[in-house]
């Protein structure tokens, strides 16, 4: 009896969820599209910002020789595992009315979510970029030194030549951002039509007991992630990644 009671509603939910997901997508539900749009918008912006900062930082650490370089590398690698809720709390304290950046009134806005996700994703991009660029640098070092390539030209050359590996780095960052719930929940507040994204919506619907809707959103979230990765992979093929390495 007990087993039946546990299994049946679950199976029912799964079927209902798939049906609901198909229905939501097919009818182009406005609320759903808004949530998807905000999710992608916030995460893409955060990843873009992370790439600009993180790739330059990672490449600089890879080519510069300075005291404490090992410590910086360890720190960066550890920051890859930053707990989202802790970052959310930190950004919350910074942006709340009483906080140092409170005057800008950014708390519970998409901008706050972008800031939090950038703090989460930037170390991942920087740490992985450092590793990738360091490997390239080991290969190119003598040749580039012989040509007198130094400073900014050295960094941009290495980043450009590592571009296909760095796309994977950016995707890893995007994966972290789009799947993250703790930080955006705290600094965004999951406000309907304003800061509700897919992950916070799933958390909310689950807690309300709307398991079917939560599952439907989950399926769509995974689908979006697959779509983005697939699009990047096919772009890579078009520009001949396989021919270039």
């Amino acid at each position: 009896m007990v087993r039946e009671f546990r299994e049946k509603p679950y199976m029912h939910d799964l079927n209902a969820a798939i049906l609901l997901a198909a229905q939501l997508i097919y009818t182009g539900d406005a609320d759903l599209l808004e949530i998807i749009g905000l999710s992608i918008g916030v995460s893409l912006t955060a990843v873009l910002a992370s790439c600009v900062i993180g790739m330059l930082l990672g490449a600089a650490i890879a080519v510069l020789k300075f005291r404490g370089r090992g410590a910086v590398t360890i720190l960066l690698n550890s920051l890859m595992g930053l707990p989202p809720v802790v970052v959310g709390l930190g950004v919350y304290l910074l942006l709340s009315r009483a906080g140092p950046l409170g005057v800008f009134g950014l708390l519970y806005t998409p901008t706050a979510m972008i800031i939090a996700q950038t703090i989460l994703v930037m170390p991942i991009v920087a740490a992985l970029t450092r590793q990738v660029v360091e490997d390239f640098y080991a290969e190119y070092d003598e040749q580039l030194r012989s040509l007198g390539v130094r400073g900014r030209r050295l960094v941009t050359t290495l980043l450009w030549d590592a571009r296909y590996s760095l796309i994977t780095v950016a995707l890893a960052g995007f994966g972290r951002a789009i799947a993250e719930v703790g930080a955006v929940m705290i600094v965004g507040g999951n406000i309907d039509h304003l800061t509700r994204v897919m992950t916070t919506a799933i958390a909310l619907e689950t807690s309300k007991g709307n398991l079917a809707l939560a599952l439907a959103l989950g399926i769509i979230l995974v689908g979006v992630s697959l779509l983005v990765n697939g699009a990047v992979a096919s772009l890579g093929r078009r520009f001949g990644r396989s021919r270039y390495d």
Partner: protein
Amino acid sequence: MIKSILPLRAVELGYIANARTLLDGISLTINRGTFTVVLGPNGAGKSLLLRLLHGMLEPSTGTISWANGSSADRRRRQAMVFQRPVHLRRSVEANIVFALGALGIPRKDRSGLVQLALERAGLTAARRVHARLLSVGEQQRLSVARALAAEPDILFLDEPTASLDPVSVHRIETLLIEANARGTAIVLVTHDVSQARRVGQKIVFLHDGRINGQGPAPSFLDNPNSDVARAYLAGKIIV
């Protein structure tokens, strides 16, 4: 146009790493338009000597001096080809353009120099091909073409033909002889005696970090002035 940065004078060069003396008391002069072959067994310090002369490493003792030019001129007017070709992940043409840019050649002069370099190396048809898709022989030819594109006063080569087939070796040697005829001094490191015989004007024989013998190519190779060199040239294994 400044005067040639040559002659290059190395006086009593020494290099010590981890308390081991790898080079000791090396003195030599490289004049304009000469073709010097540095010969010797593995571990003699040939590659290390080349890196010191090219300025990639600082000698522990001794001095290296150039006749003319600022340090920037010296960087621009010398080039080096390594044993393993390393090309950027871009086209054949773009690799040469990049090198010219790095050497500070004005943008307007680059395309003419690139075209000439490709023609000389027989790579014109492959100009748009990705550099890493070339065969190893072609890649090394591109390395030589890239190094010669800016018409350096001196070109250092570290066993550039060590892993190539005879045809590729011949094409690279031809490129070097032609560049030498145009006035570029060549310093070629090799352990291939027959190559030294084919291209060298002057031989410097290195053994155990010291110059063991030197002289004009044909006479030195036929009648070396040291026992170790004689044994090496006779094909004996030196330990």
